């Protein structure tokens, strides 16, 4: 059967479409011309300005703090949730599954406004703590799904066998269950961390004075129109993200090779 060339052409066109704005943005971060419409010569001055902008550093600090704590909370809660969902069936778990699944499909703006109203109704002051709670809440579902997908092929009778052979509960969990689901937990935690670092909409709603995170800072820079600085900042963030993905891919590949051998 002769294959049509159309899907192949479209795929590469879509990939070109994906990367075109990103590549232009990286190029413009080295462009001396302010508007980026033409090439005004190579420069690093935007990077220099960026490093002296103090509010960016404090926003980065807030982002890292929020993401780290939110990742710890959501990884713990999400892992327990996944184990419970896999192990037990029944009415409680049906409700549990709904509560874990629905936040994945609810638009971010609804999560944001509902949490804001919740905090306002309870007269809780907005700040870093509300931010951490909000981030942990939407990350729980992602961690739970990552661990659950790893548990899909896991046979619960192994745990019973271990206990029948005299192992304690904790020993069974530590020696059998955890090693099995560890890749899922790590993947879930990484996902939670990136989602938290990247989140703008929910953060914007629950942020208080002094809890500006990096995306909120970037947003206010976009509003104020300091384009070259955002270009430079974005390029650094893109470089870090791509580096992390490459490392993760590399580890994944070498692990797969080891498992094969």
């Amino acid at each position, binding site marked *: 059967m002769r294959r049509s060339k159309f*899907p192949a052409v479209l795929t590469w066109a879509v990939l070109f479409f994906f990367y075109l704005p990103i590549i232009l943005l990286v190029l413009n971060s080295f462009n001396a011309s302010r508007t980026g*419409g033409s090439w005004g010569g190579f420069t690093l001055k935007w990077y220099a300005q960026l490093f002296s902008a103090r509010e960016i550093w404090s926003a980065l600090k807030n982002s890292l703090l929020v993401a780290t704590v939110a990742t710890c909370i959501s990884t713990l809660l999400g892992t327990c949730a996944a184990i419970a969902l896999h192990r037990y069936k029944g009415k409680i778990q049906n409700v549990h599954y709904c*509560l874990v699944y629905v936040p994945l499909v*609810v*638009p971010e*703006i609804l999560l944001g406004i509902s949490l*804001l*109203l919740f905090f306002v109704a309870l007269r809780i002051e907005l700040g870093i703590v509300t931010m951490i709670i909000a981030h942990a*809440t939407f990350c729980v579902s992602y961690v739970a799904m990552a661990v659950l997908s790893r548990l899909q092929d896991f046979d619960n009778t192994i745990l019973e066998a271990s206990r029948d052979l005299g192992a304690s509960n904790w020993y069974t969990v530590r020696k059998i269950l955890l090693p099995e689901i560890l890749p899922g937990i790590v993947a879930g935690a990484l996902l939670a961390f990136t989602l938290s670092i*990247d989140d703008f909409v929910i953060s914007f709603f629950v942020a208080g004075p002094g809890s500006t995170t990096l995306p909120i800072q970037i947003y206010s820079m976009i509003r104020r129109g300091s384009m070259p600085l955002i270009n430079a900042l974005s390029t650094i963030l893109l470089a870090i993200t791509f580096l992390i993905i490459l490392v993760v891919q590399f580890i994944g590949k070498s692990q797969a090779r080891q498992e094969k051998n």
Partner: protein
Amino acid sequence: MKPKTKKLLKELGLTAPSLLWLAVFFMLPTLIIFAISFKPSDPLGGVGQGWTLNTILALKNPNYPEIIWRTLWMSGLTTIITLVISVPVAYHIARAKPWKRDLLLLLTILPFWTSFLIRIFAWKSVLHPDGMLKKFLLFCNLISEDSLLLYRPGTVLLVMVYTELPFAILPLYAAVEKFDFSLIEAALDLGAGKLRAYANIFIPGIKSGLLSACLMVLIPSIGSYVIPDVVGGIDSMMVGNVIAQRTFVDRNLPHASALAAVMTIVMFLPLLYFLKGKKQEDGSATPAKEVV
């Protein structure tokens, strides 16, 4: 203690942390949206005392039907465009050689890992009146000097399709990969035209992927806020923008809450439809297997 109660306690011990957390910080706030829709606003930007219907009645604002209609058609159109592009792409990725498939998948996922705001901002600088795309199009004589690429409904549509594409390609890829292509060959051998074979066998075959891709694109699109805010103008405002405006500009939380309640209801309709479709599919899958 009876073993049954012991088992139940163990289940509760493992379930309670996430169940309680999500009940308090997800379910309760969602219900609060509906409650606060019946509260008056207070001049300090908080929520007033007592109950009122005025907040709900204020939704009769003459601009709202237009904004709600725009939200619906823009997210609907985004979904259709995204799906039409994604099906052939997913098909190509799923049928490529393994090394090429991995590469294409990685290239598709990679932009999704980068910051959402940065990707939108990148478009803003591409489409900027002094940006490269305008210069290029002017050079090709495709547009005139005073035409505007930014701040229009078309711009919002373009960037929405851009950000949603990976979310449609991935579930579709998973569905196409599972599809048994010998069915297509069988249809062709039996005399069906190529178009007919694909329309009548391939498309129904990836129905579950199409449904979840549809949901993955439609629901976030209905809730769009940042894209119309950054690259859109007055005539491309969506419901999300009005919610944000009421929250941050007017400080009228009950009004924002009433709008959010409307959005929640609108959003749950496709979700319920999807879940129903999924159930039916699960139900009909078994007899079909028995026949085969």
